[in-house]
């Protein structure tokens, strides 16, 4: 029994590294530290840029809303001015009147005379 135990231990002993490692430890530690540190800083930067992006997004959204509101307000102003009744009112203020019946010139006749179908010239403006 004892013999077998000793034999086994001897075999196991072969597997143990004999003496200290010949490879330098410092570069490896440095590499690990560098990798970890680099990762940490990258993560930090990434997070910071994400946050910054979020702020910028917020700011731009606000700006978009503001500009949309402004655009809509201006569009409403334009619509107000270009609405037919508003146009008519301002045209009348300028002394304009509705055109009435159109007058047609016949190119076959001497220039300047109205065609035979219109009975009288258009009403003079400012009636």
């Amino acid at each position: 029994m004892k013999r077998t135990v000793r034999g086994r231990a001897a075999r196991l002993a072969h597997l143990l590294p004999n003496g200290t490692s010949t490879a330098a430890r410092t570069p490896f530690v440095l590499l690990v530290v560098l990798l970890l540190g680099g990762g940490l800083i990258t993560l930090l930067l990434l997070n910071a840029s994400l946050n910054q992006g979020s702020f910028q997004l917020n700011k731009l959204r606000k700006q978009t809303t503001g500009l949309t509101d402004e655009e809509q307000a201006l569009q409403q102003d334009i619509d107000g001015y270009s609405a037919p009744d508003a146009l008519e009112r301002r045209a009348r203020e300028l002394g304009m009147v509705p055109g009435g019946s159109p007058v047609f010139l016949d190119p076959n006749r001497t220039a300047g005379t109205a065609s035979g179908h219109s009975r009288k010239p258009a009403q003079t403006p400012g009636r």
Partner: protein
Amino acid sequence: MTDPQQPHRRNPRPPAAGARPCPGTRHPAKPRQGFIRLGSPRPRLRMISLALTLVMLAFVVRLLQVQAVDAEAYAAKAGHGRLATHTLAAERGEITDRRGIALATTVDAYDIIADPFLLTPEQSGAKDAPQQAAALLAPILDKDAGQLEEKLSVPGSRYALLARRQSPQVWNQIKDLQRTFAGKAADGSEANVLAGIVQESHSKRVYPNKDLAAGILGFVNAEGRGGGGLEAQLDKKLSGRDGKITYAQSAGRQVPTSATREFPAVPGSDVELTIDRDIQWAAQEAISRQVQESAADRGYVIAQDTRTGEILAMANAPGFDPNDISAADSGSLGNPALQDAFEPGSTSKVMSMAAVLEEGKATPETHVTVPNRLHRADRLFADDVDHDTWYLTLNGVLAKSSNIGTILAVEQLGRTQRQADDVLHSYLRKFGIGKPTGLGFPGETPGILAHPRDWSSSQRFTVRFGQGLSLNAVQAASVYSTIANGGVRVAPTLVRGTRGAGGKLVPAPEPERTRVVGAKTAKTLATMLESVVDDEAGTGSKARIPGYRVAGKTGTSNRVDPDTGRYKGYTASFAGFAPADKPRIAVYCAVQNPTRGSYFGGQVCGPVFKEVMEFSLKTLQVPPTGRPPARLPVTFRPGE
């Protein structure tokens, strides 16, 4: 590790012999006697493994339940506080006229909301905070300060809606004020009385042209759904589909790196109408003025493109402003041009004439002797003016709008009155009377046209000159449009097409085309209708447009009072098209119950027709053909 074959695992002594040896002593102990197997480890191990299996099974089942079966519920529970879900409101489509000018559009707006709790003396630090806030907000919101104060000082309330649908500019003003007050509150010099005012964003439907085409467009209700008119009819197309966004939130802000789930909103389609804004405006102007001048109940004008059936204008008076329906009279919220059924009167005679001409029973020159009174059924029929016996051509019957002449002409349609009735009825149906117009407008009336078997003894004669049947204004316009279009009826349309997200116009389905009368009959009718306007003896001289050949017909009918169901007052109308020899536009005008001045169609609606027609011809740049009018004879000399 617990190898059962190991010899030293055996129990050295029977349990009855004494206490179990301590583990320390067990190892070196060697069996002194023969082995006694006291218990096999196998069943024990089996038991244990079975128990373990059961436990594992229980775990697996639970895992399945949590991860697969009830996963949704648990995820929802977990997400309840962490995830925020918001509805992304779909933007309602625009409604534009035929040139793309917006008639209805959607803008951002805010509901202004207050938390009265923050204005209590304990919270705000000022005794009269609600009063101060109301005084500040009243001029901005354009509301009564007293009312606002009442809303702001409800005890125990945490929600007070101060104003609906305010523009972003209004909210900006409030924000500026809030900033000033917050600054003052920070100094401690004054209480912040505007702390509890917040906004809730909404969209607001805006009709930039106010009451223009309001009857057609309808309005949008408080929930933002169509409440009437095309807004209701086309609500599905216009409203689009709301979207949804779900994201992880922290303190109300989206967590940047978290995943979001977004179902984008599908914006509503834009709808392009056949309406021309300018013609619509001219029509609305003209009819509003006339209704006011005649002190009438209401009036309508329809302008229709005779070739395509497109409605260019459909104006009602009085109208309403869809921007503020709370201020509108509920009676005028609809679109009476499609929703009112009325007896058309003489404008309907053109259909009787169409039947007579198409059946080949008469020509425009056929002589008709019109006595002062005509005895038929139990009644004495008369014309609108007392006259000696008239000697008219069929053309003259239409030009002078003789009821008696029309009754006599229609009698030619069949050997018996009943046969004549049937023929006339079939023509009326073909012209679209008593049938829906095909617009599908909400609340539209098809009018009333009874079956000839159900016509009373006097009704069978009145139907010939437009009493005893009813129609809406669009149907009436369509009759004249049909004649103008060479006898082919094109179903009226209001929608040209829809524009989806791509911006490409998807045209509406082609309108139905049906032949009602032959092209020759239509042409003859157009010439006859010209006499109404052009001839000195005609009733429609007010509708003349210098330079153009105009075909038209006046109508003055007894009006059924909607309150009593009896005849009371009149309906004045005018229908026609131009240019008579190459028609482009048909216009119909009707004024209900004119009480001031004349009530004759030619006098009341003739000028409206002229104004709208003139404007339409100019807007669409329709040139006159330049051919001289036919001038058919109106009268004949007896004995000729």
